[in-house]
């Protein structure tokens, strides 16, 4: 046996589902890393809640991907048996937790995009997609609110929290452009009316984010250069160690049930 990895039978829809699932899994995993380390008990609960929402979304999307792929795979095969170069998540979601401000900024940037995205996806003619989106949208709406409140508190709190919040926003800004990127396969799905065009949500995203930053007395970064590569599996050096931990048991006991 030369590998414990799977080779996915890629179609535009499978690729699409895996990418969105990867986003949710990786971000959910990051949030779960906070467990036991949050700044307050209430926030401990909130971070776990958001993490659980994201894990749940990932599971639905992987499960649907397995169905569409039709190779008898399960959600776990996709999560545990693909290497770093096969993961198609956004660079944004794999960025380390950093301090609490960084986690909140990362979450706001993602949620402010994905919330209207799920809303738009609810109109998909694909009933499964539409149902997944409807459930996810309720969750992401809360994430936006929660993170916005915190970012405002931190930005307009103490000098230290302001500085940390600004540093978080500045540091993560370059990863927000990728939210709106699509490749050929996804373009096809968009053209077919299966899924919304992320580009069409840019104005909403910008309005949400700049609104929150203004209330938080934070400056919107001006550097326009945007990083990309996550969708093609060109990740930062932060994803590999995350997957190493995530996948260890499945790699060590191939085929076992847990």
């Amino acid at each position, binding site marked *: 046996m030369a590998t414990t990895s799977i080779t996915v039978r890629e179609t535009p829809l499978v690729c699409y589902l895996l990418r969105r699932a990867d986003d949710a899994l990786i971000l959910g995993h990051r949030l779960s890393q906070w*467990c036991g380390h949050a700044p307050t008990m209430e926030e401990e609960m909130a971070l776990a809640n958001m993490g659980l929402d994201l894990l749940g979304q990932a599971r639905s999307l992987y499960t649907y991907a397995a169905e569409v792929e039709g190779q008898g795979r399960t959600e776990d095969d996709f999560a545990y048996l693909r290497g770093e170069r096969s993961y198609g998540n956004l660079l944004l979601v794999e960025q380390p937790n950093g301090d609490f401000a960084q986690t909140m900024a990362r979450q706001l940037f993602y949620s402010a995009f994905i919330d209207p995205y799920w809303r738009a996806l609810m109109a998909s003619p694909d009933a499964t997609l539409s149902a997944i989106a409807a459930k996810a949208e309720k969750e992401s709406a809360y994430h936006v609110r929660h993170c916005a409140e915190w970012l405002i508190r931190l930005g307009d709190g103490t000098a230290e929290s302001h500085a940390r919040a600004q540093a978080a926003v500045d540091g993560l800004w370059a990863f927000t452009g990728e939210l709106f990127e699509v490749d050929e396969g996804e373009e096809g799905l968009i053209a077919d009316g299966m899924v919304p065009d992320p580009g069409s949500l840019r104005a909403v995203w910008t309005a949400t984010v700049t609104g929150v930053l203004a209330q938080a007395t934070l400056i919107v970064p001006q550097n326009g250069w945007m990083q990309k590569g996550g969708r093609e599996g060109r990740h930062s050096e932060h994803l590999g160690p995350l997957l190493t931990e995530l996948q260890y048991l499945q790699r060590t006991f191939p085929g076992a049930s847990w």
Partner: protein
Amino acid sequence: AAQLARFEARVADEERIEPNDFMPAAYRRTLTRQISQHAHSEIIGMQPEGNWITRAPSLRRKAALLAKVQDECGHGLYLYAAAETLGTSREELVEQLLSGKAKYSSIFNYPTLTWADMGAIGWLVDGAAIMNQIPLCRCSYGPYARAMIRVCKEESFHQRQGYEIMLTLARGTAEQKEMAQDALNRWWWPSLMMFGPPDAASSHSDSSMRWKIKRFSNDELRQKFVDATVPQAHFIGLTLPDPDLTFDEAAGHWRYGTIDWEEFKQVIAGNGPCNRDRMATRRKAHEDGAWVREAARAFAEKRAAAKTAEAA
């Protein structure tokens, strides 16, 4: 004195004492200590299981484990709230934990070494906790009793989940079964210690019994736990790590061997395998979060001031 007599009478009548009712200082002290220790245990208890969230072997297990640890935090929250009704603030109670003045359940000073420990903790540790806590649902102090009802319900879900993890492993590959047996071997005795010292050596019990804070002795609860758990182990084909374990047909009880109370004493004294790490992790989380809590406070004050200014 009349107040005291009325209090004792109410307790004897199984009435619930509420926060604004009269209660003896010793009752308040005992309860505050017990409830806050219980709260601290929930919070520290997040660590051993938290250790496996990022390495859980399936998405379903990962989500269940995260939810479970989150529940523990929730229990901590109810319990601190219950303790606060007795007049000590959460900040103060947390400070007692961080300074090492307050204790937490010593079971959480053992490390989680394999995935099977997630099963063993749910099954044995939560199982033992439930045994201890079910009688507390009828505790004379209302807020504690009500918190316990909620906690017990969730714990019993966790206990079943833990047992199911063990069952899955025990029916899995040879290595998985070995993992399950190994976890049982390591967690069995510490679980028995969770009920506290043998009755002969136990303090506090007399007044706690009279005040209906405690309703069964340590040894009684421990025996109930053993009687409930041994058949569960056998059912999934695991062996208890106690060569002296035998079924006493006449009494209908499983008789267990000698517990190593020296180990218990050492763990309580701070010499368990993880005491240092648990406290260090908790303190670090608290310190790392200080700037966030401060920011929230500063922000709230600013907004309050702005509102006052507006109103003026």
